């Protein structure tokens, strides 16, 4: 039981940490932003509290110190500095570590933790040397509109039965007054004439304007035990204390006199008037938007979503069987019912897949962290811009996408963007730019990472490839072909990297990892100007358009996206061929006989043959199959852990009649074939 709560805590805390990081990034750009400081403080506070409750004692202790720092910040005892932000960033890493490991036991971990806490404490004693006294001064000096007080309008409309359980509403009003300055408006217009009065019933209702630094939740807690017996609205009406404002006072008087309750709209004017500055309004709006977003979404474990998708896939399969059956019966009612089921299940499927998509946003924080940390380390000044972060992808794709993207970004920073001096020498602005851009293109998602760094010297790559024996010295390659060499395994060994372009580091790995999620990567670069890396991804992994073919006794699915053309061949055409090359329309194509690949005995002669031209790395290769059965949209299911060793199948698909077809991964098939040569 406890474990379940712990897991839940870790999950929620991960969100908290994420929020913390985001707020910290924003704070770095706007160091006096009270709301951000408050947000950071709150996140730390809940980490501390939750940590203690769920047995993350070290986490709790650690965040306690951090919380103290930000408590000082929010009470103006401490100023936000770049040092503080950097320290907090590394503290966040420690928090992540603690969340992952739980309480520490290894001596070195404990030591590291202790050292870190000392650093935090040193920060307080060192930086805070303006000390409590100075703090007090700055606090009094702070103008009232700078304090973090907000004004809330509480409408408390009890039902008649409120008093029956001994609730005394006056106590509640007292409690509200204890939160800050408050103004209570009592409305008695609903009290009936004496002869009709029920002594035990409540006829009053109240509105309270309260100005407090406490959160809205704190106010809600006051009413927690009466919420069933009343109508309750709590709305923030101003980002400061407006209880002294003449206009407000007038309005409240009028409201009581006329027995018309105040509404949030009544305070719209005050909201716009404050002396605070130009920004808060849009900030407020944004906040409101975020809040709405939070309410309109719920948290569901990914396991449940997987299950939903599985069930829906099952339904789709069953539905295919049903329509097959219906067609055979030729029964009109049956047919129309089956058609309706088909429509419904298609919609359901689209819905379910839509649910399993998550926004790219969730990973972007890590990219920002990477850029920030690396550029600081290397003394580079980089403006990192993200476009299209709200784009959504299958969660399995996102999980597998992060590492390659981090790798590409790292390369951009390490080897792309120059230090400011070099940039000035090259006639560029001292600040480098990296643009991360994601957008839809048809059924695909494209992610581009571009920088205005020093680019890649194609000539150097070419020479190195020759030296490595990857290409002939007189090979006539276009610049693009040369650049593509960095994706070839065997090119990007470490020694090559350090002295040539630097761009090669592990790019073959990047390519391979992306291929796992059916992604493709390409590169463009101009020496001195910059580099653009572009990744094309499918939107979902679990569903593909495929061509169903027969090889031996089995059926296989070849993704349509990989197919260029189909040819029917006469066996004689193959007999004339040699060296696995076939001539079609006077063109020579290499081909792979899938019977050989799948070890089907070649005993009986095939009467008819089909050649499927698939495209990979700008070349066409033929796949020889026995028969082409048809085009299907299918759900691809993983083969699971026991069959992961075989490399050329990416999964299996269940056909309408319940039989199974295996899905061919053409990229890997061609790769494997090439390696064999």
């Amino acid at each position, binding site marked *: 039981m406890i474990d379940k709560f712990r897991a839940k805590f870790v999950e929620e805390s991960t969100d908290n940490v994420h929020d913390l990081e985001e707020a910290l990034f924003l704070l770095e750009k706007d160091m006096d932003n009270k709301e951000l400081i408050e947000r950071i403080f709150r996140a730390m506070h809940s980490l501390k509290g939750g940590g203690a409750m769920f047995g993350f004692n070290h986490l709790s202790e650690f965040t306690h110190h951090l919380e103290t720092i930000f408590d000082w910040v929010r009470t103006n005892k401490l100023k936000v500095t770049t040092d503080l932000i950097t320290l907090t960033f590394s503290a966040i890493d420690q928090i992540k570590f603690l969340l992952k490991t739980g309480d520490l036991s290894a001596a070195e971990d404990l030591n590291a933790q202790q050292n870190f806490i000392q650093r935090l404490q040193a920060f307080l004693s060192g930086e805070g040397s303006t000390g409590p006294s100075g703090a007090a001064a700055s606090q009094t000096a702070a103008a009232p509109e700078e304090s973090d007080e907000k004004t809330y309008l509480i409408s408390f409309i009890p039902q008649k039965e409120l008093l029956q359980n001994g609730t005394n509403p006056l106590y509640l009003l007292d409690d509200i007054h204890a939160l800050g300055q408050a103004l209570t408006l009592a409305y008695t217009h609903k009290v009936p004439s004496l002869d009709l009065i029920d002594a035990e019933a409540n006829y009053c209702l109240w509105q309270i304007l309260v100005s407090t630094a406490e959160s809205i939740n704190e106010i809600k807690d006051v009413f927690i035990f009466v919420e069933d017996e009343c109508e309750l609205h709590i709305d923030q009406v101003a980002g400061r204390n407006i209880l002294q404002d003449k206009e407000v006072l007038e309005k409240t008087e009028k409201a009581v006199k006329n027995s018309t309750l105040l509404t949030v709209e009544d305070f719209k004017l005050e909201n716009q008037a404050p002396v605070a500055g130009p920004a808060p309004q849009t900030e407020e709006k944004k906040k409101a938007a975020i809040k709405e977003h939070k309410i309109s979404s719920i948290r569901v474990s990914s396991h449940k979503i997987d299950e939903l998708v*599985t*069930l829906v*896939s*099952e339904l789709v*399969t*069953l539905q295919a069987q049903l329509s097959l059956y219906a067609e055979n019966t030729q029964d009109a009612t049956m047919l129309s019912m089956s058609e309706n089921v088909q429509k419904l299940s298609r919609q359901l499927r689209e819905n379910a897949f839509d649910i399993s998509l998550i926004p790219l946003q969730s990973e972007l924080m890590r990219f920002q962290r990477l850029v920030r940390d690396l550029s600081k380390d290397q003394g580079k000044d980089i403006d990192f811009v993200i476009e299209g972060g709200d784009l959504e992808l299958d969660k399995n794709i996102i999980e597998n996408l992060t590492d390659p993207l981090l790798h590409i970004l790292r390369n951009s920073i390490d080897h792309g963007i120059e230090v400011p001096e070099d940039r000035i020498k090259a006639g560029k602005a001292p600040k480098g730019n990296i643009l991360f851009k994601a957008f839809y293109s048809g059924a695909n998602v494209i992610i581009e990472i571009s920088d205005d760094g020093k680019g890649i010297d194609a000539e150097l790559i070419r020479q190195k490839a020759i030296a490595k024996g990857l290409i002939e010295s007189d090979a006539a390659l276009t610049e693009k072909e040369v650049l593509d060499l960095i994706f070839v395994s065997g090119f990007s060994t470490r020694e090559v990297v350090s002295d040539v372009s630097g761009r090669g580091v592990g790019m073959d790995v990047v390519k391979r990892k992306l291929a796992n999620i059916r992604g493709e990567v390409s590169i463009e670069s101009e020496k001195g100007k910059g580099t653009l890396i572009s990744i094309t991804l499918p939107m979902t992994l679990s569903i593909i358009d495929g061509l169903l073919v027969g090889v031996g*006794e*089995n059926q296989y699915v070849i993704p349509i996206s990989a197919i260029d053309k189909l040819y029917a061949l006469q066996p004689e055409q193959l007999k004339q061929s040699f060296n696995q090359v076939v001539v079609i329309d006077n063109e020579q194509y290499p081909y792979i006989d899938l019977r050989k*690949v*799948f*070890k089907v005995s070649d005993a009986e002669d095939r009467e008819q043959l089909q050649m499927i031209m698939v495209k990979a790395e700008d070349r066409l290769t033929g796949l020889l199959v026995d028969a082409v059965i048809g085009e299907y949209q299918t759900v691809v*299911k*993983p*083969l*699971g*852990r*026991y*069959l992961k*060793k*075989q*490399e*050329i*199948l990416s*999964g*299996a698909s*269940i056909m309408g009649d*319940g*039989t*199974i077809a*295996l899905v061919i991964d053409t990229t890997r098939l061609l790769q494997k074939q090439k390696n064999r040569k």
Partner: protein
Amino acid sequence: METQNITLLSFKIQDDLFAVDALQVDHILELPPIITAVPNTPHYMKGIINLHGNIIPVADMRLIMDKEVQDKRSDASIIVLNPSNIQDARIGILVDVVEEVIETKKEALKETITEGKKGLIEHFEGTLVFNEDFVHVINIAHLCEIIEK
């Protein structure tokens, strides 16, 4: 608490009796008409089957235990295991005959002394004497490990 009850499902491979922890058994299926062979996999992998829309790989216990494969397998069944401590690890094992469910105490398990090699299986959880027969209890985690290799 000293005596721990265990539930086993026993089955036959050739002339020997074996058993697995019944709590980790998901389904018992008749041999389906088609098991889709997956090319380029170890010889004991019979292929994959469709179980309520899920793909389940099937391993032939005869081949795992280095026995001859007989042609006629009218009683053959697939026991679908769902190992409790490994994620996404459902697997079907093809056996000659499923025998019965045995309720017993853990203490009843004695150390296994195998006469002759049992193929790829290196060790057993123990051996039970049941109805004057030896029943060797297979450790599911160990079996899964073998198949995964």
